[in-house]
């Protein structure tokens, strides 16, 4: 890492190609900085040369670089040894990558998990299950740390003891969205945060599509969990296809608008994601070398701790124990619930249809609320309920 390189990357108006050419010609960034106009003329056109000379006068090289170091932000350039090999081969590779924490390990498998920000409970559920499975296996999870699918899969992976990397559409020192602060901190410890934008860059809509190419570029396989027909996710998928990455889409009901994007990808030839286990099997075939490396590495590491019920969960279970007569109705209510929100009216209707159960609405309301308090189901909004996704102690995981 050197201050002249940092300066070079921040010169406005110079594209990655121009910067690469400069490096090719002068070898070191320091030489470029000190080069005379006469020499530079061979590489840069007049307009770019002007920008270059302006930048030379404006920027305080030392203070900017010190700030970078004090924030523990690393920088890696295209021509350097550690620059991710996978990115070299994508169209339009970035000149420099900024990161906190680590860079993804090249020899280990990496899976990008992406999807809608405003996802449904179904999406939340799949994201957390997949994240957990990947995390337990030690497979690197790459995503954008956005709200919804991105963040959920990443936190699930970290929670399961895995590694994850977040690729930002802003500077790596800017936590966006702010509500993912905890994840932001965790990622720096158990993985890394990457960005092509210099530190301090604030999030902006136009910055996000270009970062999506890094998400898919760093991964071997891309899993799309929920996407509307036209969305940021579909941009990432297009880029992944250009880069030649394998794509898995999680199928959804054809009536769900949030699954339209995924279903369409399947129609167009994406792999179908059936379950985390099924996906893992496929990974073994798709990435034999990386998976083999992973297995070797894991032989050296001790077994992970088995999941235990926390105190709070214990309390909830004990409360749910001492009910009997209402239990059967509760059980049935739980059976008719789904991962997408349903209104109480729908639930009542289903109970009648499925179990011929005639219960007063207010009683069902009360039972629903109790199920909520026990943490079994979720109140999406006042009269809409869905099954909880993160609640693994209650429900059988044989999907």
């Amino acid at each position: 890492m050197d201050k002249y390189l940092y300066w070079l990357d921040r010169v406005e108006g110079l594209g990655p190609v121009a910067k690469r050419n400069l490096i090719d010609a002068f070898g070191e960034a320091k030489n470029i900085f000190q080069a005379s106009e006469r020499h530079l003329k061979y590489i840069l056109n007049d307009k770019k040369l002007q920008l270059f000379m302006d930048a030379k006068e404006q920027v305080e090289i030392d203070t900017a670089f010190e700030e970078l170091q004090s924030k523990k932000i690393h920088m890696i350039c295209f021509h350097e040894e550690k620059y991710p090999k996978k990115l070299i081969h994508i169209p339009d590779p970035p000149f420099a990558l900024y990161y906190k924490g680590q860079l993804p390990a090249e020899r280990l498998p990496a899976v990008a998990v992406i999807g809608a920000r405003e996802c449904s409970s179904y999406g939340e559920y799949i994201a957390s299950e997949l994240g957990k499975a990947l995390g337990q296996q030690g497979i690197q999870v790459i995503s954008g740390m956005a709200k919804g699918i991105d963040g959920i899969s990443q936190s699930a992976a970290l929670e399961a003891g895995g590694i994850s990397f977040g690729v930002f559409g802003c500077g790596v020192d800017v936590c966006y969205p702010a509500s993912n602060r905890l994840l932001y901190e965790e990622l720096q410890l158990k993985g890394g945060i990457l960005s092509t934008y210099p530190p301090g860059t604030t999030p902006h809509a136009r910055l996000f599509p270009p970062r999506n190419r890094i998400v898919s570029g760093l991964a071997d396989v891309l899993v799309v969990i929920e996407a509307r027909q036209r969305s940021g996710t579909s941009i990432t998928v297009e880029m992944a296809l250009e880069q030649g990455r394998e794509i898995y889409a999680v199928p959804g009901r054809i009536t769900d608008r949030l699954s339209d994007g995924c279903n369409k990808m399947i129609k167009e030839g994406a792999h179908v994601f059936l379950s985390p286990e099924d996906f893992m099997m496929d990974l073994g075939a798709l990435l034999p070398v990386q998976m083999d490396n992973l297995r070797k590495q894991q032989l050296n590491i001790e077994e992970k701790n088995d999941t235990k019920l926390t105190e709070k969960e214990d309390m909830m279970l004990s409360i749910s124990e001492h009910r009997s007569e209402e239990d059967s109705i509760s059980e049935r209510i739980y059976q008719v619930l789904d991962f997408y929100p349903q209104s109480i009216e729908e639930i009542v209707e289903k109970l009648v249809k499925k179990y011929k159960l005639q219960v007063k609405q207010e009683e069902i309301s009360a039972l629903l609320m109790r199920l909520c308090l026990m943490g079994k189901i979720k109140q999406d909004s006042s009269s809409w309920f869905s099954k909880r996704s993160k609640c693994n102690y209650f429900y059988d995981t044989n999907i």
Partner: protein
Amino acid sequence: MFSSILTGGLNGMEAYLLRAEVDISHGLPGFCMVGSLSNEVREAKERIQVALKNAGFDLPPNKITVNLAPAHIRKDGTGYDVPIAVGMLQSLGYFDEKATDGILFTGELGLNGEIKPVHGILPIVRVAAEQGIKCCIVPKENAIEGSVIPGIKVKGVESIVQLVQFLQEESDDEKERILETYQCTLNQIRRSQSESEHADFAEVRGQEMAKRAAEIAAAGFHNLLMSGPPGGGKSMIAQRIPGILPELTDRECLEVSSIYSVAGLLDAEVPLITKRPFQSPHHTISNAALVGGGVRIHPGAISLSHRGVLFLDELTEFPRHILECLRQPLEDHKVSIARANGNFQYPANFMLVCAMNPCKCGYYPDKNRCTCSEKDMIQYWNRLSGPLLDRVDMYVETSRVDLLKLQGNGKEENTATIRKRVEQARSIQEKRFRKKNYTFNSEMKASDMDEFCNLGKAEKQLMELAYTNLKLSARTYHRVLKVSRTIADLDGSERIHEKHISEALLYRLTERNHGNNG
């Protein structure tokens, strides 16, 4: 000659008695009125002179002085025409001094001598009766309105000529023949109005949850916020809430009618409000129209919905400063309007019912149709101020109604059945709070909660769990308890059981809605 005639005036909602003093004496001819008069009172001078001339009375070219005493209170309205005219005629000797003893006069004069109706008859007659006045002579259109006050004779008069005839007559029988005494009781008026019923709840298809919430809200007089997609029947439900509220008691009926009387909104045929009022102002309403005010202080929509329902449709469209005005009245059940010329108080004990869409596009939480991001949601809900939402006791979401339900002829409960249950719950509350100065669960003081919302062990445990798991605030905690008290009352249960609490929890306003989690 000097004369002094009894009449009544209004100061905000409060009526008071005053005297129209008239003096006619020799001097430079002229007409002069004093006593803190507003414009419309000052104009009486022209009306009276012309009306008396056209009715055939000669006014001599003398110095006429009129004073409305007490002179320090500002006088508004047109009801002083008749007493001043009577005073002038008495001073001129058209009838005996004793003829006007113990009679209160009020009314507006037309240029041809006829007497036109005025505002605020009900409170004026009431004050007159309280002060032991025997008889009130009011415009004919107002006579039924005044006659519901017991213990005072109310006569209606059509023209100044008729009035003079009455005052000149000496025998009581003849007097009665000229101006008959109106006798009308509250019950008579109620009976005559019973046919015009409120719209019926049976017309609302589906929406069981919202209907149930409306029933609970009506039983405990809780404020209700409904949110749901457009066209789901929120307004239909709101319009039907007055129908399931118990009938107005006689006292409440007079209270409400007085407000409408002051506002001049009573009907001449059926001059009393016997049904729970329902006010649904458009969101472009001004401050003064909502809480009261204006050049002549006028009761606002919140006072006109006293003892009834104030329905704010499209709540998020109301400008913030308008909604903020509701905070004090919601707390105090009355509104004080302070102006340079005085401080006016109007009662405003209403049930607030609001309706809004759940998000910008209107379809949340139907993820198939709603495209709002979390930020949109937060922005949308932030249009409502926290303090206002704090005063919402119950929150319910309506959903889209199934086509089958719309077309089907499934039996829906009608208003009468629901009202029976509400009335039962009300009588339980009345009994419970008989020693307190309030009547509804929603008004329960925090200090009385321990006494009236006694929880068993299991119930306490449930509340604790809810408090921690659902992150209730202290205020929401109390609100949930009050609503569960009402649900238990509807159930006829002395104690609050777990199921009552669970149901009440469903109607709480969640953090998410406050937009605090962004």
